[in-house]
């Protein structure tokens, strides 16, 4: 699916998802992408999150990046903010953990306690 014609199909499908999706309530995943995060593998973390969201067609989940948050020793870090809930910060989020966080926390609402740095 690499041509511009394919992109048109992607657009139509995305439009359809946007219509179906219920109002407002969106969730946010923030990946720390400072030099420390990148060196620890944050690009693969971000890619795994985007890939898992695409596979599961989670149109209400947004992934954004931020810089160094001063917790370099715990990188890669991912903050999960579900609609109407407190922020949860996960540590050492490699691609495998990223996929688990989508499946268990974002989809099923179960916080994975042993990977959590802090809840604020």
């Amino acid at each position, binding site marked *: *699916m690499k041509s511009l014609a394919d992109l048109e199909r992607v*657009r139509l499908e995305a*439009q359809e998802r946007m219509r179906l999706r219920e109002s407002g309530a969106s969730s946010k995943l923030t990946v720390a*992408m400072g*030099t420390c995060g*990148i060196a620890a593998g944050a690009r693969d973390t971000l890619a795994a999150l*985007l890939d898992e969201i695409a596979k599961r067609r989670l149109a209400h989940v947004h992934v*954004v*990046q931020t810089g160094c948050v001063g917790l370099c020793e715990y990188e890669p870090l991912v903050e999960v903010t579900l609609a109407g809930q407190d922020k949860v910060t996960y540590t050492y989020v490699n691609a495998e953990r990223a996929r688990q966080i989508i499946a268990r926390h974002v989809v099923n609402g179960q916080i994975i306690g042993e990977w959590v740095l802090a809840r604020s």
Partner: protein
Amino acid sequence: MEELALHVLDLIQNSLEAGARHLVLTVVEDRAQGVLTVQLLDDGRGMEAATQQRVFDPFFTSRTTRRVGLGLPLLRATAEATGGLAELASRPGEGTRVQVVVYTRHIDCPPLGDLALTVAVSVAANPQVEFCYTHTVDGRSMEFDTAELRSQLAEVPLSDPAVYQWMLAFLREELSKLYGGAKCNEIPSRS
């Protein structure tokens, strides 16, 4: 950093942190000469001359979360280890340009790495930023411009996960064509 593409990701993050809305990434490789140049241009807030003189100092950073800033010093160390260079030019209020030259045949030159992934994740996580990326190998070029994608996608944002998948597949295919169709995990057959 294990890949030049990760240094590029780091530079992109610097530009975003400087409030850039437009990024222009230009990569040119001449395989006969063994020279690779990378240039990233942004329209972020830029910096004064005094700051510019210190950005390659690992004990200088504008951030307050910690007291070291390793991105540019590591990039310069990588480039200089191959006999190349890393330079920065900036004007306050106008933007910043970072230029890197590496000599790819030097044993200390890291691989280019997954530049398609670097660009695709950067666009997907920053859909409001306009991104223009051109890559030239031995005189043949490819161009990727979010302004064009944006007009074709209409109200669908560049952050849509299916759009991300398309961008990644598109960039990987275009880069693979530029590099003669070889995939990095394939051993070329003798013919």
